[in-house]
């Protein structure tokens, strides 16, 4: 039997929110291979958050199937949750707890414990330049520091897949550089990264594969370089994005 390289598969995925006649995502088929840095790009209201939410198991689709490493949420929710890491756009941390207390709590929730967890926290804090701030409360951190801890909380348990929702929004150039550099490093170690962003230049340089989605449909998909090559009149991903999704302003 041939080994399947797909880590995520969406089959005919459709989602209608209750009371809405318009699908948030409409019959999407998508396959993501292991080891990719996959960018889900789209304007506000395109269906990115809905797709990510379904992938993270926050709610189910109206129809269609989601396979994460060959498993479905209906049957193996806890197994899937053990192999994914989620880094939400909001700073999803407890402000009154220190960085170490936050990470210890989230580590425990993933079943990590004892010396292994302590060493892993130390390793991650050092990796992101926060080892001296381990015992400071999150509410005293700068925006960039909070975002780095927010990221560590999602990767502490060495997940197979990381979902990143705008991981660099609102941070300075230094923090962004550190975050992206370490994400590349984690990716090289075999972790698949699913990433959403409005920052096209960052996506072009960071992602190995992107899908541009709008109005619940995948409009185009491929390696950023290939997408640019397919449209010689455009020189970067942002121009192609605007060409495909239009210049009209979008509401949420």
């Amino acid at each position: 039997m041939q080994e399947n390289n797909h880590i995520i598969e969406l089959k005919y995925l459709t989602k209608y929110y209750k009371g809405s006649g318009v699908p948030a995502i409409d019959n999407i088929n998508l396959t993501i291979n292991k080891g990719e840095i996959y960018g889900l790009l789209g304007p506000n209201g395109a269906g990115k958050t809905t797709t990510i939410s379904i992938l993270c198991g926050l709610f189910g689709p109206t129809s269609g199937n989601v396979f994460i490493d060959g498993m479905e949420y209906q049957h193996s929710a806890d197994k899937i949750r053990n192999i994914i890491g989620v880094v939400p756009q909001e700073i999803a941390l407890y402000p009154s707890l220190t960085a170490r207390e936050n990470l210890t709590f989230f580590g425990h929730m993933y079943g990590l414990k004892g010396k292994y967890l302590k060493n892993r926290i130390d390793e991650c804090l050092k990796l992101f330049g926060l080892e001296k701030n381990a015992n400071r409360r999150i509410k005293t951190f700068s925006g960039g520091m909070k975002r780095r801890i927010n990221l560590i909380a999602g990767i502490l348990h060495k997940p197979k897949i990381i979902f990143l929702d705008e991981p660099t929004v609102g941070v300075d150039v230094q923090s962004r550089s550190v975050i992206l550099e370490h994400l590349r490093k984690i990716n090289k170690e075999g972790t698949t990264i699913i990433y959403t962003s409005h920052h096209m230049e960052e996506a072009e340089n960071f992602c190995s594969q992107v899908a541009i989605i709008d109005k619940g449909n995948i409009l185009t998909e491929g390696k950023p370089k290939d997408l640019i090559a397919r449209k010689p009149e455009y020189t970067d991903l942002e121009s192609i994005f605007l060409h495909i999704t239009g210049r009209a302003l979008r509401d949420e």
Partner: protein
Amino acid sequence: MLQLLSSIYKELLVLIRDRAGLAILFIMPLVLILIMTLIQDATFRTVKEVNISMILVNNDKDSLGEAISKGLYASEYFQIVEEIDGEKITSDMAKELVAKGDYKIGIIIPERATDAIRGNVNALINKSFKSFNIPGVKKRTKKSTVNVTIYIDPATSQSFKNMVLSSLKEFTSQLEIEMFFKNFSEAMAQMMPDQKPVKFESFETIKYQEVYASTTKDEMLPNSVQHNVPAWTMFAMFFIVLPLAGNIIKERDDGSAFRLKTMPGSFVTVMFSKIFVFLGVAFLQFILMLLVGVYIMPLMGLPQLEIGPHKIALGVMALASGLAATGYGVALGTIATTHEQAATFGAVSIIIFAALGGIWVPVYVMPHTIRIISQFSPLHWGLNGFYDIFLRGGDLVVVAAETAKLLIFFIFMLLIAIVYNNYTKTK
């Protein structure tokens, strides 16, 4: 298990580090219970112990005036005032003083009131002995009425007014009986001069013995503290709903709930850790409020709280009440989408539950329909259970039904939260 323990530890850290919130959580219920007990103590004493000042204008100067005056002075309920600054109070002054609210009640006994009673008594005797021509007894048959005026402050409670009126009626009727017997004996003596006249002796044939029904050997006397501490403790414990619901909403607002939902730890694990911590807070609140009742209230001139012999029953009731309150908080925090919704709905619903539960007005005086509705108030179950323990000496068996109802309420609230949480996943 590790997830649950870690989650409990995290909740404790979050709670402990919110110093202001923690202070509010413990100090406010204590302030509430002290103030409410002090206030309610005054109301409680109005009927039992408070010495209320009352004006007496006795224009009769005869037996009726004397009987009423003697009776009122002898009563433990009233403090009688007949003059101010050495000046005798007149009827008009009494009316004015009561109208100003300086006194609750003013009693005016008119001149010759005793004569009127005496005349009526003689008329009755005459009627009885009309076939005998008794020389000493006047031939009077016309009845007259005496008007004892009672000025009442409109702010006076109905129960106090009723108590004064019934006391006055008692004094008057006793005088009438005495007078009747005396005149009757005199008439008989005239008819049968050889017989020695019988002297009237008042004798209390029926005595009323007050015994507070209790299942314990040691009688616990009902007083304001025995009534109010359990009532307001129950009320304060239910207010744990607000910080708990706020905690859940805050976690959702700041994104932590989002992250937790993507982790292997289930919704139930997270909620149980919150229940555990807030139940601990509620139990601690309960113990502090009991300690206030036992040690602080006597220092403030209030009676001491008697906990009674069934401490295990008390602990079980406190835990069951705490669970009911935390279950309600979890349901509210899960369903409410904003802090404003949770705070408004939570506070108002607790006040409604408390009103229905008999915290302010006893359930037995409520209209029939409300009495039926009150049977569904968790505060009613809790209060009943605490009254069983504090006033009726009830043990674990006695409070079993109330405990079961509170636990069922807790489970029902948890189910609502779980079902709603699952429902949002299908939205």
